[in-house]
């Protein structure tokens, strides 16, 4: 399994990285976004979704409370999951998980809460903040190419 690492110096760089990543993404695809509170997952997700919607101003609300937000994009349905409030893996079936495994593009924040249901071969992006800077992040990618 190959692993690659990117250094992102600012929010703008994180966003540009997300857009470039979105450009390469085609359905079906599930992308797991790991990282602690404030690590940059939602910044990545928002720029990614805006790129696929072709709308730089689109409102991308946090899915923390709704658990999932769905978007219709030219590349198919895009599901933005936030599993922060999940505490047992099976609960994910209540919010359309089986569909997400079969079609469309899925961005999954807090995949740690999937436990044993976490897809083994999914593309994973792990974000970690740089202790020396407010905005700098390191992102490590592994999984399916």
């Amino acid at each position: 399994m190959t692993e690659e690492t990117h250094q992102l110096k600012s929010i703008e760089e994180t966003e540009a990285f997300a857009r470039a990543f979105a450009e390469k993404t085609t359905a079906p695809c599930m992308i797991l976004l790991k990282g602690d509170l404030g690590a940059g997952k939602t910044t990545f997700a928002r720029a990614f979704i805006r790129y696929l919607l072709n709308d730089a101003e689109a409102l991308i609300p946090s899915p923390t409370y709704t658990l999932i937000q769905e978007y219709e994009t030219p590349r198919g349905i895009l599901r933005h999951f936030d599993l922060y409030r999940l505490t047992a893996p099976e609960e994910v079936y209540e919010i359309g998980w089986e569909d997400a495994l079969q079609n469309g593009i899925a961005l999954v924040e807090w995949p740690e809460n999937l436990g044993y249901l976490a897809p083994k071969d999914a593309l994973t992006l792990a974000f970690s903040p740089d202790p020396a800077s407010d905005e700098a992040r390191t992102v490590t990618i592994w999984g399916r190419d």
Partner: protein
Amino acid sequence: MHILGIETSCDETGIAVINGKTREIIAESVKSQIDAHQVFGGVVPEIAARAHIDVIDGMIAHVMREAKLEFKDLDGIAATCGPGLIGGVMVGMMAGKAIALAHQKPFIAVNHLEAHILTPRLLQDVPFPYLVLLVSGGHTQILVAKSLSDYELWGTTLDDACGEAFDKCAKLLRLPFPGGPHLEKVAAKCEDAAKALQNVPLPQPMAGKPNCDFSFSGLKNAVRLATQKPHLAPELAYSFQHTASEILADRCAQAIKRFRTIYPDVAHPAFVVSGGVAANKTIRARLEGLMQENGFLFFAPPLKYCGDNGVMIAWAGYERLAAGLVDGLDAKARPRWPLEEMKQSS
């Protein structure tokens, strides 16, 4: 006019009977599932749907008994049909439809956000148009209520909701769920406010910008960084709460200007704050002061009606029924239901 209201869109099961015409709350009951969830440390959608199912029948029967009414005495059944967690919404909506069908009563599909906006009108006279700040775990919006069903969104959060920021900062401070009320308690222990703001300065995203949008994710990030340094929890909690309330006040100040420009003829304009975060006393006091300074009448529901409840659904149902807005039994449960779509659907 007796209306039964049913709320199940998130963590609370809320049931109430009101007399809309006389503005009387006849009987009500709210059961928070947070008690059941606290052992798990979060609100769980599946458990939420199941817990609503477990309690809804008994709660409706209890409220009807308290009200000394039978279903045949009701004039309408109102249930939240969105936005919210779909599993929970389905439970309340189907219960409402079943009662409406069995007893041949009008069914009113209520938008949960509209109910928050309208609730203050049950308790006091709030004439349209008025300015609204809707602030909860899932929503942070400034809008103008022009008339029933006619809402214009002026600003919303570009990232996290205000209540979500409270919950996540509470989590960073290792406080239990729900974080908002716990954070407020810890902040109250801060003995020196000026020192807290000096020791833990936090940013106010969007401050002074001439629109009414919000942003809380930068604040959350700043709290995260602050927790990594030596800190006193009461100081950090105080600084966060103070900053959140300043952000809300700054955005509302922009909305006041805009309201004055667009509605110069409204002599005594009204401002309504609603939603779970409106229960925070610091935020409430800050907004009330801002409104007084600017000649706006300030309305906030009593603390017990800031969170989700059945009374607000019954009241929204009454207002819609009185305006002739009744829904069919084919009304859908809608996880997303923007307020601007109310006008088209009525």
